[in-house]
């Protein structure tokens, strides 16, 4: 199908884009890369009266190291993240996840700000934002606002922003000393939305797991940070033997629901299997790099 008619503006500043949204009186829609919005427009599942194109706004596409934080502009494309040396060295879990984000042609247009704003519960970037404890910066009619990723995602396809607010930057804290990490997911076809996905990262202190970070996706209507699992494995010195316990902890901390793609029981099985595999891989990376 084809989109219904709309007006189109391509402002050259964030302030002008916010103004355009305000004057659209709730009928406006922001377009970044358009890779989630265009299918919705083509199917006429959404019919905005005005499309506010962000692509002419300068300065929103960059990856910069600022102290212990990687500041990523909202219009940075998935492919920019995939091929960035800074991401590879500072946010290795994100680097490992990027090839799983749709397909190359989508990654060449899709942006991180767009993906986070769209808030698909089966998309990798929202999960990574929660995993890293990212801060999402938005600009609206009342100025700037900063929201933690865990508070940003409200439910499936819903974020906490007002309709006139626009994400312009995402700050990812670098997890220092994290020498063990892994990302893994299961999708029906490589590049499709994940049925379940896990991210894990930790430091080692005297052979014990420290500062563990665990997030999962595909098991709730938002990505989840599994803090109780983190607490439970901190201090562990079980090595690779701890993998099955980790899997049980992850399984016990999620309660997915049935949907057309998979049953709740299957998703629960998957996330456990992924967790076990990810734990082994993270541990061998940690001890491999240490020796």
């Amino acid at each position, binding site marked *: 199908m084809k989109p219904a008619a709309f007006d189109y503006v391509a402002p050259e500043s964030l302030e002008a884009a916010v103004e355009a949204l305000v004057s659209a009186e709730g009928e406006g829609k922001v377009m970044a890369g358009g890779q989630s919005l*265009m299918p919705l427009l083509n199917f006429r599942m959404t019919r905005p009266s005005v499309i506010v194109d962000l692509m002419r706004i300068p300065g929103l596409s960059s990856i910069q190291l600022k102290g212990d934080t990687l500041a990523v502009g909202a219009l940075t494309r998935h492919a920019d993240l995939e091929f960035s040396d800074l991401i590879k060295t500072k946010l290795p879990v994100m680097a490992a996840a990027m090839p799983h984000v749709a397909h190359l042609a989508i990654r060449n247009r899709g942006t991180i700000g767009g993906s986070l704003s769209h808030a698909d519960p089966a998309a990798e970037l929202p999960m990574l934002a929660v995993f890293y404890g990212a801060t999402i910066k938005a600009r609206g009619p009342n100025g700037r606002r900063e929201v933690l990723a865990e508070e940003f995602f409200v439910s499936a396809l819903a974020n906490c922003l007002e309709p006139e607010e626009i994400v312009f930057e995402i700050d990812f804290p670098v997890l220092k000393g994290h020498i063990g990490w892994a990302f893994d997911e299961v999708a029906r076809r490589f590049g499709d939305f994940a049925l379940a996905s896990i991210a894990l990262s930790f430091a080692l202190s005297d052979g014990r797991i420290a500062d563990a970070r665990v997030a999962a996706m595909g098991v709730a209507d938002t990505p989840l940070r599994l803090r109780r699992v983190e607490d439970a494995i901190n201090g562990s010195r079980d090595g690779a033997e701890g993998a099955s316990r980790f899997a049980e902890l992850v399984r016990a901390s999620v309660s997915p629901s049935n949907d057309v793609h998979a049953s709740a029981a299957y998703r629960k099985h998957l996330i456990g299997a992924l967790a076990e595999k990810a734990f082994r891989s993270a541990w061998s990376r940690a001890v491999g790099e240490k020796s």
Partner: protein
Amino acid sequence: MKKDLAVTVNGRKYEARVEPRLLLSDFLRDTLGLTGTHIGCEHGVCGACTILVNGDSVRSCLMLAVRADGAEIVTVEGLGSRDQLNALQNEFREKHGLQCGFCTPGMLITGMDLLKKYPLASDEEIRERLSGNLCRCTGYQNIVAAIRAAAALRDGSAP
């Protein structure tokens, strides 16, 4: 409220005035008459409409024509000519990398971008990278063989 658009397609400059809702795929096919770009699903799943925009592969059904203002576009018509196929097209012919041909323009354009960006060191990798392009004849075997041969040619390791 129509918008002006100036774009270079396969080295030729075009100017047009289009409705903002016009898809780039329809602009190429209906406005410019470049029907080599095929439209399959029209929501970004099948890959048939893939083109190069400023050197990167892009789904033309997921891009508004107005957003191509100022861009350099290459469609399948710009890869080679009837008498002079490019290296990848030649491998598709050699390996019989097509059956009905509907998905072929998208396969070729995607293949061009994959060859530029990835090692394509194994059939498994080629299959994963190509998973965004559907062939409903399920003729993947020979498409993969053609891309494998083109990668070998690129790397100077052709038999």
